[in-house]
Each structure stands twice: as structure tokens, then as C-alpha cells.
């Protein structure tokens, strides 16, 4: 075959392999993608290492009536991002808050991916009654107002980290399952699946070894986007007073600084966590978008 190798690889990377085309532009992820990844890695590292870093105790009140008067104190060399109304160090609270927010975000998506991904993968491959049934359930899940469902679950159960993650996880099942199903439908029609069957492979084998690795590619792009959505959703729940009871999250930190007097006199109280949330969500979205472009997920009709 006398095609140049770059074109072959680029065509191969396309979800829909178009080998009739000779001149496929080689796609790149770009600097923005790597900056986003760097930020995500940084935030995750800080969150994981928080207890061992030389940070101020996030729950300690650094009240200094004589020197600075009443808290909140504005950003200074002592408190990089200032303090809140209880004179607690915002920088350290944001990093500790990241622990909960990120755990909620990632575990919600992980739950949604395992459950929704499995259902979608099987549905797209076996088709028939199972597919019809699960597709209908997903339709119901998608049509059910997400916020109402979240309020319902969080008001019925104790608001632990697990409950919040589970709630958001359940909400992510439907979109994930739809993507997995459409990818699975596309790949199940591909010749290599027929070839695997003709070779004698069992259906379970075809799903795990042949379909799953192919379906995972578009799903990995969705995972980043999904995490961003889950982190924002946690912030929304916090505003309604429905987030995790113990410990601080970015959503709860923003809430503390969000009454109009604090916003006017001490905007840094909510500004710090808002920026952290914004940057993280943007990084996740951007990286997810770039990945989606890179792997051409749009063909699967999200």
C-alpha cells in the first residue's frame, strides 16, 4: 500500500475509518489541552496531599481583633486569599474543599460510567427486548427533572459524601448509557465484529475484547465533561443547602460568601472558590472537548 503513514494513522484514529481519503489532516490536541490537563493534575495533587502540605488548619479561626479588627480579613501575605467571616484561611479551605468536590465529581462519573456504560454497551450489542427496555428507562431518567430527583434523594437520605456522589451518579447514567449504546451499535456493525464471530468468539468475549476498547475512546472524552457537570451540580446542591453535611466543598464555600453584604465588603470570600471551580470546570470541559474532537465523537450523535 502506497499511502503515507501519517495519513494511515490519522484515518485509523477516526472513529469512522475513511480509508478512501488520502489526505487526512493530522489532528493535534494543542497547548490549551495540555494546560488544562496541567491544572487538573495540579488541583488533584494538592487535594490528595492537602493533609501533608504546610497549609493552615482550614477550621482554625485566626481572629485578630487588636491588629485587624473584625473578620473577614482581606488577602495578605499571611492569608493569600483572605479569610472568611470566621477568620478561617480561604486558601487552605479551597484546597481542602477540593477534596470533597473532586471526589464527588469523579466518583459520580465513575458510578454513572460503570452502570450506564455497561447497560449501553450490552443494549447496543444484543439489541432486542433488553435494548428496548433499557432505552425506555433511560428516556424516563432523562425526562425526569434532575434537580427534583436530587432534592428527593438528598432529603430522604442522610447527606453524606456517598449519597451526594450516588445522586449525581444516577443522574449521569442516562447520558452515558446513550453514548455507550450508540457507539456500541456503530461498532457492532463493523466488519471486525463479524470477523470475530466467524472466528468463533462468544458474544461476551466480543463485547469485552472487541467492542469495549473501541467504545471507551468516545466515552473517555465524555468522562471529563461529565466530571465538570458533576462538580457544578454539587455547587448547585450546596446553594440549596443540600450538599455534604460534614466538611467543606467548593459549593459550600461559595455559599458562605454569597450574601449581599459579604459580596459587597469582602468579595474574596466567594471569589476564591468561584475561581477554583471555574478554572477546574473549564479545564475539564476544554480537555473533554478537545478529546472529543480528536476522536471525532460527534459522528456518534451524542
Amino acid at each position, binding site marked *: 500500500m502506497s499511502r503515507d503513514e501519517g495519513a494511515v494513522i490519522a484515518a485509523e484514529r477516526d472513529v469512522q*475509518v475513511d480509508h478512501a481519503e488520502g489526505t487526512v489532516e493530522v489532528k493535534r490536541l494543542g497547548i490549551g489541552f495540555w494546560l488544562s490537563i496541567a491544572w487538573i493534575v495540579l488541583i488533584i495533587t494538592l487535594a490528595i496531599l492537602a493533609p501533608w502540605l504546610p497549609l493552615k488548619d482550614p477550621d482554625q479561626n485566626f481572629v485578630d481583633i487588636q491588629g485587624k479588627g473584625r473578620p473577614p480579613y482581606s488577602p495578605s501575605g499571611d492569608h493569600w486569599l483572605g479569610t472568611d467571616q470566621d477568620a478561617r484561611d480561604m486558601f487552605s479551605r479551597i484546597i481542602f474543599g477540593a477534596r470533597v468536590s473532586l471526589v464527588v465529581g469523579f466518583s459520580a462519573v465513575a458510578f454513572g460510567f460503570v452502570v450506564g456504560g455497561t447497560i449501553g454497551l450490552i443494549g447496543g450489542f444484543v439489541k432486542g427486548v433488553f435494548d428496548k427496555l433499557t432505552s425506555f428507562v433511560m428516556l424516563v431518567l432523562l425526562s425526569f427533572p434532575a434537580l427534583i430527583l436530587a432534592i428527593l434523594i438528598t432529603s430522604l437520605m442522610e447527606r453524606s459524601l456517598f449519597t451526594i456522589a450516588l445522586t449525581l451518579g444516577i443522574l449521569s447514567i442516562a447520558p452515558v448509557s446513550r453514548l455507550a449504546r450508540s457507539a456500541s451499535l456503530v461498532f457492532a456493525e463493523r466488519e*471486525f465484529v*463479524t470477523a470475530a464471530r466467524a*472466528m*468463533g468468539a462468544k458474544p461476551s468475549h466480543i463485547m469485552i475484547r472487541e467492542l469495549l476498547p473501541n467504545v471507551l475512546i468516545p466515552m473517555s472524552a465524555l468522562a471529563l465533561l461529565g466530571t465538570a457537570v458533576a462538580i457544578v451540580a454539587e455547587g448547585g446542591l450546596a446553594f440549596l443547602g443540600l450538599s455534604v453535611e460534614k466538611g467543606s466543598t467548593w459549593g459550600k464555600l461559595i455559599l458562605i460568601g454569597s450574601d449581599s453584604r459579604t459580596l459587597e465588603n469582602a468579595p474574596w470570600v466567594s471569589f476564591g472558590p468561584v475561581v477554583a471551580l471555574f478554572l477546574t470546570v473549564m479545564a475539564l470541559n476544554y480537555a473533554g472537548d478537545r478529546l472529543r474532537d480528536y476522536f471525532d465523537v460527534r459522528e456518534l450523535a451524542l
Partner: protein
Amino acid sequence: MSPAEAHDVLLEVEGYSVAFKTPRGLARVVDDVSFSLERGHTLGIVGESGSGKSVLNRSLMGLISSNRQVESGSASFDGEQMVGRDRQPFWGARIGMIFQDPMTSLNPVMKVNRQIFEPLKLHLGLTGDAARVRAIELLTKVGIPEPARRLDQYPHELSGGMRQRVMIAIALAGEPELLIADEPTTALDVTVQKYILDLLSDLQSDTGMSMILITHDLGVARGRTDDIMVMYGGRVMEFAPTAELFERMQHPYSEALMQSIPRLDQPKHTRLTPISGAPPDPVDPPPGCRFSPRCRYAQARCVEELPQPRGKYVASTHVWSCFFPVASEEGRSALAANSETGRSAAGLAVAPADRTVDP
């Protein structure tokens, strides 16, 4: 003594039909096909696109997973009835298959080694080093240089010809008794085609397996097959031992196929004769012979009556379904009559005799 005992028949197909339910009605894609294949023999199935040759084989293999498919007739593999059964036990171990496009029939995200180890583990129980040794043997057998290195590569790192060789190696891994090659060279460069076809012939004679070679090119089937079955509109037009077919071609469709392909022994600048028109609609086929609307020999009878095959489809017999066979007095006079009037009974323009090319 029945023919099945006289010859060592591996695959015997009788009255086999495949139809699909469509909104317009039943599409009869394969219609009343019968043939038999002896052990160690190669059968070529020839026909243009839409003649039903691929559907015939995929359906026989049970690879069409559509609930709109309706299968009828009988097909027995080594005495075992296949129609109406789960055909998984045959896959890989007894019947291997190679597909048209090696670009899409290998999983793009799996290394070659995993794809070739799978059938070895499944059918021969080979794992680990034993599987690797066998895999390297197989790759060597199909003519892949540096097989050990190729094992650790991804499909996109291989050329089309290499990929098709890998596909062949995978199909051979289960040591099947029958290999179905569905247009194995259509997607490949012309220079690679011959190597792959020769390789298949060599492997077939080495292992003693039977082979079905599906192609649209009569020239490809010539010299590489023992028998040839010509299909059109889902029906068998002609079935004959290869040499016999080329010596005494009987069906006008076989003849038309032959004339539409360039040949080296023809003088330069010979005009090819295209077969005008398109294959019949499987939902609403012509009432008479499927080929009659495009046939230069067509008479009134061809348009009204469906010709039945003469003789039984047993290996090494010559069978055709035509009222006016090419190499007969009826055929010659039919063509002469059509040339005189300038039209066949179905309305096709027929050029006067001796000037069959230019209108």
C-alpha cells in the same frame, strides 16, 4: 450408491433460499440455490454485485443477525444440518472466513498478537508461549516477513496486503475444514491481489481443506477453482467444473460476464461488452428468467417462464438453467433471430450479428 457417498461431499446445499422482510414485501435475495462441495475442492461463486453470493455465504454461516431474515431449504455440513440451528459450533473450528476489506475486519485497537491468540486459545487450547510459537508459524505460513515483530504491532502499522494475510492466518488458526473467502482481494491493490490468491491456493492444497472463493471476476476463479457456480439475481445460472465451464459455457449470463472482463489473449483495443441494465429487484423480480431483461438471447418464453436447472448440482456435473443455452442450436438461432429484429423479446436492443459491440 448415492452421489454423497460416491464423492466425499463436505457441504451440500439444497433448495436454499434467503429472504428479508421489507416494507415493500419479501426480498428474495437468495432463491432456491443448490450446490455441493467436495472435501479438498475449491468452489468459485461468481456473480456481479447484488447477485446474492455474499448473502448466500453469510447466511449459510449464520452471520446475518437480522430478525427480518427468513431462511429455508437445507444445507448440511459434513452430514450435519445447519439451517435452523445455532451455527456457533461451526465458526472458526470447522468453517473459517475471510472478508472483503482487511482494513475494517481487524480490530483497530487490538494488537495483532491478541487477535491471533484468540482463536488459538478458543479452538486449540493454546496459551502463552505455545500460542506465540504457533502464531509465528501461522504468520510465516501466510508469508509475513519478521512475524515476531508483526505480532506486537497494531493493524494500522500494517499494509493492506499484510492485514489480509493476518486475516487469513486468523481464519486458519482454528484449522477449519472449509475456508470461505468473500472477495478476499477486492479491497487490495492489483499487485497484491495475485499474491493473496496464490497464497490461498497454496494453503488450500497444503492443508487439504475445502474452499469457497467468492468473486465477481471469472478470471480470478479460473485456474484456482475446481468448480464454478455463476449466480445472478439470487439464483444459480450455471454450475460446472471450471475447465468444462470455460470450454462449453452454456448460460448467456456467464458469457456476458466473460465478455465484460478484459483478457490478455485478446487483441489490443478490443472493446469490452458491458452488461447493460441493473440486477433485478429482489422484491419484485421479473416473472421469467431473472436475466431475461438484460439477455441478448431472450425469447418470449424466457420472459414468461422461469427456467429450471437441468440436472442435479453434484460436483463435476454441468448444470444450467436456460432455455436457449449459448452452445446449443436453440441458443444460436435465438440470438440470430434477435439480431435480425434488433431487439430481444424483453425489449433489449441487440446488435446485428458479427457486430456485437458497436451499436
